[in-house]
C-alpha cells in the first residue's frame, strides 16, 4: 500500500498504528519519535481530567523548572547591559535520553534550584543595599536642600533686621528678639523634613493644610535625578519638603500623615554645625555603600553570565521534556503489565523509519525490550498530510488556508504552483516590476539561511515565508510583461513593428500595415496610438475570458480522479459530464467564437465585426434568430440552438440522476430485506472495544467507538444537497466567468497607474538640460523609484495577489475541492521551536 511514491497530487497514505511501549523506554521512545516528527498521537484517555493522568507529577516538576528558566530569562533581559546568551546550536547538548537521562534531569532540576536561590538572594541583598543607598541619597538631598533653605532664610532674616520695617509680623519679631539674645541665627519653629513622591505632593499639601487649618509653612524642592527601583526598573521622582509648624500635637500629626502618605522623614538638626556633621557622615556612608553595591552588582552579573551560557539549552530541554510528558499523558497506561499503549497516525511510507527509531531508542536506553509497533485496521478517516518542501510549502499553505483537503483528495496546491503565479502575472504584467520582485525574492532566497534564523517580525516574516511564490510571480510577470510589451509603462522595440506611420492630410498620423507580423507579444506601435487603449482593453478582456474558461474547465476535470479514487463511478456521469457539457456549450462556445473572431481580417470582411457579448445574450434570450448584420459565421443560429438545448438538458440531468440512482440503490437494499441499523449499532460497538481492550490490540483501535459519528444517509438530504449543488454550479458558471474579468480590470489598472506615475514624474524632467536637468532627474528619478516600489510593486502586487487568491479559492476550488479533511499534526520538536 505504502509503496506509492509521494506526490503533492494526493495526500500521503496514512496508517493507524499501535505502539506497545515498555514503561522503561517510554520516555526515550517518545523523545526519539519527537525528533523524527512523524507520528500524531491520539488521546487515549479523553475522559480523564488533565490532573488525574499518569505523568502529572513530572509535568508539574517540569513546569516548576520552566518557571525558573523563565525567571532567569526575565532577569537576563532586565539587565541594562545585554548579557550574551549562547545560541542553542553552539551549546553542548544536554542528553536527556538513555540510561542517564533521568539523572540528567534531576541534576538540572537541582542546578536550576541552586541558581534560583543564589540569584534571588543576590537580588534581595542588591535590593536591600539599593534601598539603603536610596535612603542615604535622599537624606543627603534633604540635608543639602534644607541647608540651602536655612541659608536663604538667614539672608532674608538679616535683611528684615536691617530694614526698619514696622509692619514685620509678630512671629518674626519674636524671632528677632531671640536671635538678638542668642547672638546667632536661630529658629524656634520646629519642623519636619523628608522626601515624598512628587505625584503625591499636592494631595499631601492639601491634606496638611486642612488638618492643621493652615497653621503651617511648607516649602519643597524638586530632586532633579529620578530614583530607579532596582527590582522593577521603574523611575520615581521625589521632592524634598520641609514643613514648619508649632506645637507637638501638630508635629505629630504631620509625621503621621507623612508616614501614611508614603513619605520618608529624616531627622534634621536645627544647628548648622550638626547638619554639616551629619552631611559628612552621610557622604562617607554613601561612598562605602556604593562600593559594596558595586561588588554585589558585579557578582550578580557574573552569576547571570554563567546562566546565560546555558540558558538556551535549558529552555530547549525544558520545552522538550514538557512536550514528552504531555504526550505520555495521552497514552493508555496499564499498571499491571508495565506497558504503555499508544495509538496514532503516521504516514505509511514512514513506518520502517519509525521502527528504526524505536529500535534506536531501545538501544540508547540500554534495555532489551523493544517497543512493538503494528498497524491497525480502521474505518476512521486519517488526517491529511502533504509532504512539502520549502518550495511547495507556500503554495500548499495558500490552499490549506481555504480548507484542508479531504484524505487522498486531489490537491489543488500542486496546480497552484503554476496557476497561481500565472494568474497573478496576468494582472501584474510588466517587465520592470516583475524584475524588481524577482530580484527581491532572489535575494531572500540567496540569504535564506541567515534570514531564516533571524526574527523578522510578522510582516517581513510573511513575505519571507512566501519567497518562492514571489519568485515565480516575478518570473511570470516578466513573461506577461513581454506579452503586453510593457516595461515601466514604456514599450520595448525588439523586433520590426508591423505598422508604419504616415502623415495623412485628413486624419493626421495613420498607421498602415506593412505586412510584418510582430513575432512575440504586443506590437510596440500600439503604444501611444490613439486607439491603443481600445485595442488592449478588448484584447485583455477576451484573454481573461479565455483564461478563465480554461481554468474552470481544468478545475471541473479534477473531479474525475477524485471520483475514480473514491469509487464513485456514477458521479462521473451524474456530475462531471453534465457539468462539463453545460460549461462548454455556453462558455466554451464563447471562447471558440473569440478565437474565431480573432482569426478573421475584418477590414476585408463584408460585415461589421459582431459584438460577442450581444451574441451571447441573444443566444439565450432569443434562441434561433441571429441578425444577419451581426452574424459571425453561416449556420450560427442552428449551432446556437443545439448548444442551448444541450445546456438546457444538463440542468435536469444534473438535478435528477444522482438522487434517482441513490433511491434505486436504497430500494434494492430494502428489497433484499435489509433495514438500516443506525441506532442499534452503538452498544455492540462498545462491547467490542471493551472486549478487545482486554485482548489487547488484535487489530482494533481502542478509542474507535468514542468519536465516530455515523452520518445519516437520508434520501431527502441527498436531494437537497443535489438541488443546491445544481443551482450553485449553473449560476456559478455565469458569475465565475464574469469574475475572471478581474484579470483584465487589474491589469488595466496596473498599466494605467504605472503610466500615470511615469507621466507625472520623470516625463516632466526628461526634457530639461544642463546641471539643473541632471539634479532634477536624479531627485525625481529617486522619487519615481520609491513610488514604483511602494505603490506599484507592493500595493498593486498585494492587490493582484489577493485577486489571484480569490480566483483560486472561489472560482476554481468550488468546482472540485471538498476540503473536508483535518491536518496531520505530528509530535515534533522542530515544530516546538517554530512556535517559539
Amino acid at each position: 500500500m505504502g509503496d506509492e511514491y509521494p506526490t503533492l497530487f494526493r495526500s500521503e497514505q496514512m496508517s493507524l498504528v499501535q505502539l506497545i511501549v515498555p514503561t522503561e523506554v517510554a520516555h526515550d521512545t517518545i523523545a526519539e519519535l519527537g525528533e523524527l516528527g512523524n507520528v500524531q498521537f491520539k488521546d487515549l484517555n479523553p475522559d480523564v481530567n488533565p490532573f488525574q493522568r499518569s505523568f502529572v507529577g513530572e509535568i508539574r516538576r517540569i513546569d516548576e523548572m520552566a518557571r525558573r528558566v523563565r525567571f532567569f530569562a526575565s532577569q537576563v533581559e532586565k539587565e541594562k547591559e545585554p548579557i550574551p546568551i549562547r545560541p542553542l546550536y553552539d551549546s553542548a547538548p544536554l542528553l536527556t535520553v538513555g540510561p542517564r537521562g533521568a539523572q540528567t534531569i534531576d541534576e538540572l532540576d537541582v542546578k536550576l534550584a541552586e541558581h534560583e536561590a543564589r540569584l534571588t538572594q543576590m537580588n534581595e541583598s542588591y535590593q536591600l543595599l539599593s534601598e539603603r543607598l536610596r535612603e542615604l541619597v535622599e537624606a543627603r538631598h534633604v540635608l543639602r536642600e534644607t541647608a540651602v533653605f536655612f541659608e536663604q532664610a538667614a539672608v532674608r532674616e538679616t535683611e528684615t533686621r536691617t530694614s526698619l520695617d514696622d509692619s514685620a509680623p509678630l512671629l518674626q519679631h519674636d524671632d528677632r528678639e531671640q536671635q538678638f539674645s542668642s547672638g546667632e541665627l536661630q529658629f524656634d519653629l520646629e519642623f519636619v523634613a523628608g522626601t515624598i513622591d512628587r505625584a503625591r505632593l499636592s494631595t499631601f499639601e492639601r491634606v496638611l493644610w486642612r488638618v492643621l487649618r493652615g497653621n503651617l509653612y511648607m516649602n519643597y524642592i524638586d530632586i532633579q535625578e529620578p530614583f530607579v527601583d532596582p527590582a522593577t526598573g521603574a523611575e520615581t521622582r521625589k521632592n524634598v519638603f520641609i514643613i514648619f509648624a508649632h506645637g507637638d500635637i501638630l508635629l505629630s500629626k504631620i509625621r503621621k500623615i507623612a508616614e501614611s502618605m508614603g513619605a520618608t522623614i529624616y531627622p534634621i538638626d536645627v544647628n548648622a554645625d550638626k547638619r554639616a556633621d551629619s552631611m559628612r557622615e552621610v557622604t562617607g556612608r554613601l561612598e562605602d555603600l556604593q562600593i559594596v553595591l558595586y561588588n554585589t552588582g558585579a557578582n550578580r552579573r557574573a552569576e547571570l553570565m554563567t546562566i546565560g551560557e546555558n540558558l538556551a539549552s535549558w529552555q530547549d530541554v525544558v520545552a522538550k521534556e514538557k512536550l514528552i510528558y504531555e504526550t505520555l499523558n495521552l497514552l493508555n497506561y496499564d499498571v499491571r503489565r508495565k506497558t504503555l499503549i499508544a495509538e496514532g497516525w503516521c504516514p505509511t511510507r514512514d513506518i520502517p523509519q519509525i521502527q528504526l527509531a524505536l529500535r534506536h531508542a531501545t538501544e540508547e536506553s540500554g534495555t532489551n525490550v523493544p517497543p512493538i509497533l503494528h498497524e491497525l485496521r480502521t474505518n476512521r478517516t486519517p488526517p491529511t498530510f502533504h509532504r512539502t518542501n520549502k518550495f511547495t510549502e507556500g503554495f500548499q499553505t495558500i490552499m490549506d488556508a481555504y480548507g484542508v483537503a479531504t484524505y487522498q483528495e486531489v490537491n489543488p496546491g500542486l496546480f497552484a504552483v503554476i496557476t497561481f503565479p500565472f494568474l497573478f502575472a496576468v494582472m501584474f504584467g510588466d517587465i520592470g516590476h516583475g524584475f524588481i520582485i524577482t530580484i527581491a525574492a532572489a535575494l531572500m532566497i540567496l540569504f535564506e539561511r541567515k534570514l531564516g534564523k533571524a526574527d523578522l517580525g510578522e510582516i517581513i516574516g510573511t513575505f519571507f515565508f512566501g519567497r518562492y511564490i514571489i519568485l515565480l510571480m516575478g518570473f511570470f510577470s516578466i513573461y506577461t510583461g513581454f506579452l503586453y510589451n510593457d516595461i515601466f509603462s514604456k514599450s520595448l522595440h525588439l523586433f520590426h513593428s508591423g505598422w508604419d506611420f504616415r502623415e495623412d492630410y485628413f486624419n493626421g498620423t495613420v498607421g498602415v500595415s506593412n505586412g510584418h507580423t510582430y513575432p512575440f507579444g504586443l506590437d510596440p506601435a500600439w503604444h501611444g496610438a490613439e486607439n491603443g487603449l481600445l485595442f488592449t482593453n478588448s484584447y485583455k478582456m477576451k484573454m481573461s475570458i479565455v483564461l478563465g474558461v480554461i481554468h474552470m474547465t481544468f478545475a471541473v476535470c479534477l473531479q474525475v480522479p477524485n471520483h475514480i479514487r473514491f469509487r464513485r463511478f456514477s458521479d462521473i456521469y451524474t456530475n462531471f459530464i453534465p457539468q462539463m457539457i453545460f460549461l462548454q456549450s455556453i462558455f466554451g462556445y464563447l471562447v471558440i467564437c473569440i478565437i474565431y473572431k480573432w482569426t478573421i481580417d475584418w477590414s476585408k470582411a463584408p460585415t461589421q465585426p459582431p459584438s460577442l457579448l450581444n451574441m451571447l445574450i441573444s443566444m439565450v434570450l432569443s434562441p434561433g434568430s441571429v441578425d444577419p448584420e451581426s452574424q459571425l459565421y453561416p449556420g450560427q443560429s442552428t449551432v446556437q440552438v443545439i448548444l442551448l438545448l444541450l445546456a438546457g438538458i444538463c440542468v435536469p440531468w444534473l438535478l435528477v440522476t444522482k438522487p434517482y440512482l441513490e433511491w434505486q440503490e436504497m430500494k434494492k437494499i430494502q428489497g433484499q430485506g435489509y433495514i438500516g441499523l443506525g441506532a442499534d449499532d452503538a452498544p455492540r460497538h462498545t462491547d467490542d472495544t471493551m472486549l478487545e481492550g482486554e485482548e489487547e490490540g488484535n487489530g482494533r483501535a481502542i478509542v474507535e467507538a468514542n468519536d465516530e459519528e455515523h452520518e445519516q444517509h437520508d434520501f431527502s438530504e441527498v436531494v437537497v444537497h443535489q438541488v443546491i449543488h445544481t443551482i450553485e454550479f449553473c449560476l456559478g458558471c455565469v458569475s465565475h466567468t464574469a469574475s475572471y474579468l478581474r484579470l483584465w480590470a487589474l491589469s488595466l489598472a496596473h498599466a494605467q497607474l504605472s503610466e500615470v506615475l511615469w507621466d507625472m514624474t520623470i516625463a516632466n524632467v526628461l526634457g530639461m538640460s544642463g546641471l539643473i536637468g541632471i539634479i532634477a532627474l536624479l531627485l525625481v528619478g529617486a522619487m519615481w523609484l520609491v513610488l514604483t516600489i511602494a505603490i506599484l510593486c507592493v500595493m498593486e502586487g498585494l492587490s493582484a495577489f489577493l485577486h489571484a487568491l480569490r480566483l483560486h479559492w472561489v472560482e476554481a476550488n468550488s468546482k472540485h475541492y471538498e476540503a473536508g479533511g483535518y491536518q496531520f499534526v505530528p509530535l515534533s520538536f522542530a515544530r516546538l521551536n517554530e512556535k517559539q
Partner: protein
Amino acid sequence: MEALLFNVSGGFLEGIVRGYKAGLLTQNQYNNLTQCETIEDFRTQLSATDYGNFLANEPLPISTSTISDKATQLLVDQFNYLRSNAVEPLSKFLEYMTYAYMIDNVILIITGTLHGRNTNELLQRCHPLGIFDTMPALCVATNVEELYHTVLVETPLAPYFRDSVTAADLDDLNIEIIRNTLYKAYLEDFDAFCQSLGGPTAEIMHRILAFEADRRAINITINSFGTQLSKEQRAKLFPTIGRLFPEGNNALARADDIEQVRQACEPVAEYRAFFDSSGPGAGRVNGGAGGGSESTANLLGDLGVSDEFGGGAADLEDRFFVHEVHLNKLAFLQQFQYAVFYSYIKLKEQEIRSLTWIAECIAQNARDRIHDFIPTF
C-alpha cells in the same frame, strides 16, 4: 431608542463585558476544581480557564490569599480597562460602582486606626477599586467632624456624609452607623442616577439595588438585636428604595426577633423563601461575622465574605448571595443597558469568593465542605 443609539458609545464596552462574562467559570469547571487534591492541581486546572497563567510565575507553595489577590487584580484590571474606555454616562455609572468600595475602605481604615492597627497594613487590605488619593490621611481623624473636614470633603462620598452624620466620637457603634448611613445614601443616590438614565438600565438596576437595599435592611435588623442601637436609630438606617419600603421597613424597625423579621418579609414572595428553614442559621450571621478578619468592625454585620461564616449552605447570607447571583444573571438577558457592567463585576467577585473558598478547603483539607460555594454559571 436604546437599540438605535446605544452602540454609538456603549457598544464596544458591552461587547467586551459580555466577552468577559463568557469567561466566567462554568459549573463543569467548578466540578473539576473541587476534585483537586492540592493547590498545584488547582493551579493546573485554572490555567485551562480564562484565568490562564496568572499563577504560573508564583513560586510554590501558593497561599490562598495569593490566589485571591491575583484574581482580584485581574478583576481590577478588567474594570480599569472598561473605565478608561468609557464615556458619559457609562463612565459615571462605573464611578458610582466604585463608591461602594470607597465606603468599605473608609470604614476599614477608621476602624483599624481605632483599634491601633498599622496604617500601611490597613492600606494594603483596602479594595483596590475603592482607593482614593487622600485615603491614607484618614488615620489621623479622631472624631466624625474631623473625618469629614480633613479627608472626605473632597471625595465623592462627601454629599452622603454631609447631610446624614452628626458630630460624634468615633467608636464601634458610631462607625457602624456611619457605614450604614453612607450606604443608605449611596444606594439611594445610585438608584436615582440609574433612574435618570431611564430605559432598561433603570429597570434592571432598580431590581438589583432594591434587593441590595432590602438585604441591608434585614441584616441591620437581625444584627441589631441585643445591641444598644435604638429602634428609631435603626429605622433611620434603612434604605428607602427596597421592595420592603415602606411597610416592610416599618415592620422591620419594630421587630424584636427573627420571627418578626420573617413576617415583615412575608409580602415579598422571593424573600419568603429565605426564612424557610433559616431559623437556626440566622443566629450564626451575627456570631460568625464578628470572627472575621475585620474583627469588631462587623458589629452590625456587613457583606461578610462567605468563607468567614461558620454556617452551612443553608445560611441566610448564602441565600442572599444566591439570590444576588440570580438577579445579576438576569441582567445579561437584556441588551443595550449598563446593568451588565454592574452585574459582571458582582458575579466576578462572587466567583473569586468561590475560588478562594475552594482553595481554602483544599489547603485545610476540609473536603466535606468544599461544595458550599455559590456557583455563578
